């Protein structure tokens, strides 16, 4: 039982970070970043390069992943989204752009890193064994790291100037502008931050589960689901959604294991029913 919970918490922390990045971008720009999963994969591959192939310290590799994705995110917002949002008649056009960017990143990743699954050496060896649960040390470390990131993110959003600016922008764009918040600059920062989070999680998980080019799409879908469960555009919702999905996966994989691969069928159907009854998710604002 504790094993299931521990796995759920560990998974949940990772998922929460992914969901946070996605929800940040959504709250600032009303854009669902279809390419979020690809950004995760890119982060994973960069860490693989820096830590796995070049042998540099893991922390440096994580930093490289985060920085690269932050730059990618900033460029994507500044060069692509800004122009399209301004000129399109319907807001759904941004979805096409996001999907095209997802394809583009998929292509780049395939070309640069190939199709093979990549792994890296463990960052710390050994396994924690007790009566109740078995947990490899590296998972504990990564889990703790993820929780630390979540906490820093929340503190950043709550107490720092950019964090306040972005929260204001998310709540009321016009009012924020009237208060002097530079919309363009903070949209870019927000997108960069969201992308960075995805990249960092990718880097963290490559040391546990490896990475391959094909998982971008499924990760994006999982991220969307978490954001929907918790409530789009709400930080608390993303965290809740991440942990809930992590927990559901952990429970499902152990409990439903006997019934074959219907874990996700159950999760998806439950999600659809839940959203029909409560479209704003757990903590989201009523839609509109």
């Amino acid at each position, binding site marked *: 039982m504790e094993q299931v919970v521990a796995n759920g918490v560990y998974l949940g922390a990772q998922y929460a970070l992914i969901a946070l990045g996605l929800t940040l971008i*959504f709250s600032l720009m009303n854009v*669902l970043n279809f390419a979020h999963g690809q950004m995760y994969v890119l982060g994973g591959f960069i860490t693989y390069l820096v830590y796995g192939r070049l042998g540099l310290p893991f922390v440096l590799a994580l930093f490289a992943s985060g920085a690269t994705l932050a730059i990618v995110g900033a460029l994507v917002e500044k060069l692509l989204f800004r122009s399209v949002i301004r000129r399109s*008649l319907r807001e759904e056009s941004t979805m096409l752009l996001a999907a*095209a960017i997802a*394809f*583009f990143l998929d*292509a780049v990743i395939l070309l640069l890193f190939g199709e093979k699954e990549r792994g890296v050496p463990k960052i710390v060896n050994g396994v924690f064994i007790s009566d109740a649960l078995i947990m490899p040390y590296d998972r504990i470390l990564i889990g703790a790291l993820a929780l630390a990131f979540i906490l820093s993110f929340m503190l950043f959003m709550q107490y720092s100037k950019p964090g306040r600016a972005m929260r204001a922008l998310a709540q009321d764009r016009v009012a924020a502008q009237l208060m002097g918040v530079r919309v363009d600059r903070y949209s870019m920062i927000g997108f960069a931050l969201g992308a960075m989070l995805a990249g960092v999680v990718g880097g963290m998980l490559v040391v546990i589960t490896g990475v391959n080019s094909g998982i971008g799409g499924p990760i994006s879908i999982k991220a969307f689901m978490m954001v929907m469960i918790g409530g789009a555009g709400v930080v608390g919702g993303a965290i809740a959604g991440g942990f809930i999905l992590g927990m559901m996966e952990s429970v499902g994989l152990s409990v439903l294991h006997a019934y074959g691969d*219907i874990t996700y069928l159950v999760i998806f159907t439950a999600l659809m*029913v839940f959203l029909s009854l409560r479209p704003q998710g757990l903590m989201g604002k009523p*839609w509109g």
Partner: protein
Amino acid sequence: MRKLGAAAAGLAVLLVGVPWAIAATGRDDLYYTLTSVALLSIASAGVWLTFFIGRINIGQGAYALIGGYVAAILVVDYGLSFWLTLPLAGLFCAAASILIGLPILRLRGVYFAMVTLVLTEVVRLLALALPITNGASGMVNIPLPGAIRLFGITIVPDFAKLRHPHLAFYIVSVLLMALCFGGLYRLVHSRVGKLCRSLQQNEELASSIGVDIAWLRVLAYAVSSFLGGVGGAVFEAISQSIYPSSFTVTDSVNFMLNCFLGGLGYVFGPMIGTFVLYFGWDLLFQTGEYQLLIYSTLLIALMLFLPNGLLSLLPVARQSET
């Protein structure tokens, strides 16, 4: 009257001109490509219709899959003629979509989109899990469509006996596409179309003037899903097989992209969009490993220059406004 003439001319080009050109150049492989474009544009038209009532539909792949399976099961397990299963598959999808649509059509924007995204996956997983769909091995060796005979006269020949079933499938698909877009055109330009537009633009206001918005939404979604099911059923007939992976989330996204590219404000948008995206992807096959890179770069470039779709290049007078 002019429009009818233009439509007839277009149909003549497609049904007579194209086969003649293909026979002349010997490019028989083009039949499959063009037939696919026609069928995919029907499914995309369904997605377009959901856009028309103001919803983002990324779940059409689910109905294409359902339609394909229903047609296959009816033909293989119950021995029905394909021509009967075609509308039945569509109707089954429409019925399913009414059940699904009633709760979810209340959602708007990205919320609705996300639920439909999940829908495609759910159907795929169902296809894997249910015994009637034969799980991961799918259904294969599905017989080709049979003949339709009325009063002893063969109206449609037995496909299994044809020397060129590709041409026959092409003709069927083009006719279905013409029916689909003709019907859609009529819808958009009739009062029903105006009511749908009112839904799209302001649901509350529409409600206050007496429009039954819940009913209209469900109706549009049902027609939408019907089109998806029909597309899937014909695909199944051509490939004579259907698998859980025949239509995936990627296909659902592609149907949506086809609509976007052509232009959401234009009835023929999905047709143009499907044509360009499908042919574009096919042509780029020559570039080998750079196919996806060039494809996506072109898409991005297109979005930067024409954020409102390809048909926005047309002079304003010829557009049907959204």
